[in-house]
């Protein structure tokens, strides 16, 4: 107080410099952020609103008129049996693939945390499936599972495990599980990477202390590893829920939604309604529904992430 009073000139000078600085900062912030924001607004928010607008109309490329019909497309959608069963199939895909992948992922992360010769080689090799593009993965498994000349049938026949070829993608329920198998092959490395990173962050003394106290390996896993991995598991669970909700590529290439619509998930139904039946209004309603459901889950995800940050 006294110093600034005795040197008013200095004080004012400092204030002025600060504010001109701040203006320069704001200008920099504006120019560095706005291109990205404009691009995202134009590519995400704009289209999302446009999809909603279309969903309120009857838009069919076979008819030139596009009458406003309110929420009729949505009413249609919820009453549609095809939609309800596609929702159930999506939930089945989600639940089974995520559950299997989390369990396998936890086990393999624990395994790759052990100290053994060749561990680093296995760690490098195991990432390869994740690098294979989704479409290539689907095509490859379509070929492996081929009913007459596929490698899986040939292998099982040679080993004497089956007597006749199995048409793996020929029955709805079996086909769905085969799609899950193919998805698991590609996605497992992601789980292992995430869980292994989390596992490596747990200090070893915890396990030593538990060992001295006579805890078994299983007890250590249940009492130490799992609780401390919980934040990572949660992140993976939510991310994969969002990803499996949009499952499309692998189904498009392996089964095209068949047989008998047995693998038609919500995203696939949306695609089919829009681009095969040219019903853009109903397709947009389906798309907007999926989008809104995802957004709600995404907000939940962000809240969880930020709660995690606060804890850490």
């Amino acid at each position, binding site marked *: 107080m006294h110093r600034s009073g005795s040197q008013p000139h200095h004080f004012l000078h400092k204030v002025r410099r600060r504010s001109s600085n701040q203006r320069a900062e704001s200008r920099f912030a504006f120019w560095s952020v706005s291109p990205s924001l404009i*691009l995202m607004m134009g590519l995400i928010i*704009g289209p999302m609103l446009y999809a909603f607008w279309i969903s309120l109309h009857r838009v069919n490329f076979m008819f030139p008129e596009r009458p406003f019909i309110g929420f009729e497309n949505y009413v249609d959608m919820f009453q549609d049996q095809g939609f309800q069963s596609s929702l159930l199939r999506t939930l089945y895909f989600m639940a089974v693939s995520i559950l299997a992948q989390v369990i396998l992922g936890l086990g393999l992360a624990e395994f790759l945390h052990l100290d053994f010769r060749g561990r680093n080689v296995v760690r*490098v090799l195991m990432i390869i499936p994740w690098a294979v*593009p989704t*479409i290539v993965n689907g*095509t490859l*498994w379509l070929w492996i599972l081929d009913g007459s000349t596929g490698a899986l049938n040939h292998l099982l026949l040679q080993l004497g495990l089956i007597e006749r070829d199995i048409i793996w993608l020929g029955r709805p329920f079996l086909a769905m599980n085969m799609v899950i198998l193919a998805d698991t092959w590609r996605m497992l490395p992601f789980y292992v990477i995430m869980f292994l990173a989390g596992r490596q962050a747990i200090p070893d003394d915890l396990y030593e202390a538990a060992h001295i106290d006579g805890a078994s390996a299983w007890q250590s896993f249940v009492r130490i590893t799992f609780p401390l991995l919980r934040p990572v598991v949660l992140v993976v669970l939510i991310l994969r829920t969002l990803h499996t909700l949009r499952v499309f590529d692998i189904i498009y290439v392996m089964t095209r939604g068949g047989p008998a619509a047995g693998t038609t998930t919500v995203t696939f139904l949306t695609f089919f309604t829009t681009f095969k039946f040219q019903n853009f209004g109903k397709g947009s309603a389906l798309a907007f529904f999926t989008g809104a459901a995802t957004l709600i889950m995404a907000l939940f995800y*962000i809240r969880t992430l930020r709660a995690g940050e606060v804890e850490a």
Partner: protein
Amino acid sequence: MTARGTHRKWGRRNVTRQVLIGIIAVVFVLWTLAPIYWLFISAISPTAELASYPPHWFPEEPNFNRLRAILSSGLLSSSSMQTMARPAEFFRKALGNSFVVSLTTTAICLTLGTLSGYAFARLRFPGRRLFMLLPLALQMLPPIALAIPLFMLLERIRLIDTLFGLILVYPSFLLVYVIWIMSSYYQSLPNELEDAARVDGCTRLGVFTRVVLPLSRPALFSTGLLTFLLAWDEFLYALVLTTNQAKTMPVAIGEFSTQFGVDFGMMMAGGLLASIPPILIAVLFQPLLVRGITAGSVKG
């Protein structure tokens, strides 16, 4: 005696342990590599051998004709290669498109995303938190929700089936990702260097280009790799927004059988070529990628 007893018990347990670890490791590696092996073998096996039973787990007359036909635009000498001329050209073009789209998109997203990421990390401005969280939520929107309106919009401005159209659309799911990773990287950098540069009279832009950018090279590199992988893998937008000229590799593989019939040998050859760049990246730069994946927690 008790000491020897426990010792022996320990030894036996150790052996069982070693054997168990060995078995799990072998099974896991087989599960991981067998499909990849089959991808490669199918691409180099003659068509007749692909259909034979008992199967030729290793082809008797392997050849690289399919791969050569796709990669070399020159003359196809033998008559057996004449028949693959059209499908090979189909894949060659798609491979080129994939490279152009993925590389350009990565460059655009890195340029815009790095700047924005820096601003989000260091500067305080109105609406910062909202601008930071809103895109994160929006980026998780399923592509199908945006593909329909984007298709209708691009059709109106005649950008359907152009590489430019794809390059315009791809930042919708990549840009936020770059911003997010880069800004968390900048938050982890100490302020001191930048403060020193500013005391010396550097502007924010000067600080960014002279101090921050050189420091962010490793982060830029790993973010760039992940962005490239995501763009390379993209399917739904490319499927909906292209019809003929601008097809990328995933679309070409996914639609191959509708155009040329089911020819798994050729499809595997295309699949192998589409997998080589990402597999090389994943194996060569694994530590970088793993850091990117765990930091970004985005790619699925």
